[in-house]
């Protein structure tokens, strides 16, 4: 039972991180029907920013949690700037081009950012400080759940609740949904569609950056390539849940996290990806739009 719980929680942790990244994919897809392949790189840049800021703060004598928070804020701001700029220079000029063009542009952006960090930093794995302190009260159950896992699960949950609130109830959130559903009409009621799209990229990038710093301090090392792997997984999660759907992204991410965790625990860690992607293939065969995806039939 302990073993099962342990796998369940580590799957939940993984799933939470995938969810934070998958939300960016799904929100961007929902609004401009683009698979932003460079989204994983934003997550990687978030982790690198956090590493640099955390190193400086450590030298200055700050401690654990305060470093985590400050580095998190820095990572969010820096990654948002990247996301905003990326949309402006790589996607906006292609807004009216055939759909394949921005997709190629996204892949180019991804390769560019990976190699830029490779050259500016290093190709080696860099150690990432464990910014999440060990909590005393978790001692008795530390063989089941680490404090890093607890922090990741809780903070992801809080972030997702805030996001849901923002999208559902604020005027800007409603404008985002309106823009996703009908861009022309959004313009006609006075919504500045370009601004809404920029905001979507900023929100998505912030979530990815938070995911980046949380997982980096859990796993303890980063390199320029982590964004690619995490990006593919999160993209899978978004498709699994139904791309364009926000609850779908979270659900898909959790299912993916658990699948990987249980496959590793009960079969072998070699089979982690086999099970994850087999699940994707199965779901796409039986539910092509994803678990919560809207079918394309629409009343005219």
């Amino acid at each position, binding site marked *: 039972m302990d073993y099962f719980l342990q796998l369940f929680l580590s799957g939940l942790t993984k799933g939470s991180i995938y969810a934070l990244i998958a939300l960016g994919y799904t929100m961007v897809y929902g609004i401009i029907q683009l698979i932003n392949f460079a989204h994983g790189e934003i997550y990687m840049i978030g982790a690198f920013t956090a590493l640099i800021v955390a190193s400086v703060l450590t030298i200055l004598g700050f401690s654990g949690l305060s470093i985590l928070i400050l580095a998190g804020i820095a990572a969010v701001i820096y990654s948002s700037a990247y996301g905003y700029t990326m949309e402006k220079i790589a996607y906006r000029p292609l807004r009216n081009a055939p759909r394949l063009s921005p997709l190629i542009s996204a892949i180019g952006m991804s390769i560019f950012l990976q190699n830029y960090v490779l050259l500016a930093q290093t190709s080696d794995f860099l150690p990432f400080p464990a910014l999440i302190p060990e909590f005393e009260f978790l001692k008795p159950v530390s063989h089941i759940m680490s404090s890093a896992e607890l922090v990741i699960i809780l903070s992801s949950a809080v972030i997702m609740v805030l996001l849901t609130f923002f999208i559902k109830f604020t005027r800007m959130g409603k404008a985002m949904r309106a823009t996703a559903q009908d861009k022309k009409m*959004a313009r006609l009621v006075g919504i500045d569609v370009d601004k809404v799209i920029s905001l979507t990229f900023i929100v998505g990038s912030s979530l990815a950056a938070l995911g980046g710093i949380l997982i980096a301090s859990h796993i303890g090392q980063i390199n320029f390539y982590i964004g690619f792997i995490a990006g593919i997984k999160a993209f899978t999660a978004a498709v699994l849940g139904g791309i364009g759907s926000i609850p779908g992204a979270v659900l898909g991410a959790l299912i993916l996290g658990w699948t990987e965790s249980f496959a590793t625990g009960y079969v072998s860690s070699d089979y982690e990806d086999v099970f994850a992607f087999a699940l994707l293939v199965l779901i796409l065969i039986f539910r092509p739009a994803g678990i919560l995806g809207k079918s394309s039939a629409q009343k005219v």
Partner: protein
Amino acid sequence: MLEINNISTFYGNIQALHDVSLKINEGEIITLIGANGAGKTTTLLSVSGIVQPKSGEILFKGEPIHRMKPDKIVQMGICQVPEGRHIFPYLTVSENLDMGAFLRKDREGIKKDLEQIYDLFPRLAERRHQQGGTLSGGEQQMLAISRALMARPRLLLLDEPSLGLAPLIVQQIFEIIKKIKEESGTTIFLVEQNANLALKVADRGYVMETGRVTMEDKASSLLSNEDVKKAYLGI
């Protein structure tokens, strides 16, 4: 109030409007009638800034608006109910109405207008928590008009409000249009294929053919004009 001077609008290489000019005075209902593809919708989209005319100018209260972005044009008080209604399908009725007031900051005023709209359209009040896409065609048209009214427009652009609706509902919609003009003094620019109905509510009318304005007159004179009768009224 609105002056369109010699605009020409293109879609790629295809010219949709040729030197179109028309004028709307404050407080009147004018209508633009014409066959499919005559350029009526393009004219309205040009006013709203969704497409930009290549040449010519559009003045609203003397100010040029033909190079402005659509949201700035809405801010100036020009709202459009586009052809086919364009309800946000997955937003609820009340969220759709809220989006109509997107640029307004006066919470109290918005609340009051919302209540007024629910009084005017009890059907919408009943369905306020239902998704817009689930409404019937007539209800959607009422929602689309209400959504535009939520912006408190000075000039309301209506594109084919009768499209695809049952005759009884069309009657209702036109009653509402008259009521809007009488109660709030909103100026209305109505584009319609149902020329008969449109000319009956309008003060003045313009006739459009293949991208050009070919006639303009008082609505009552157009109704009795032999050419208009033959071409658009089916008499």
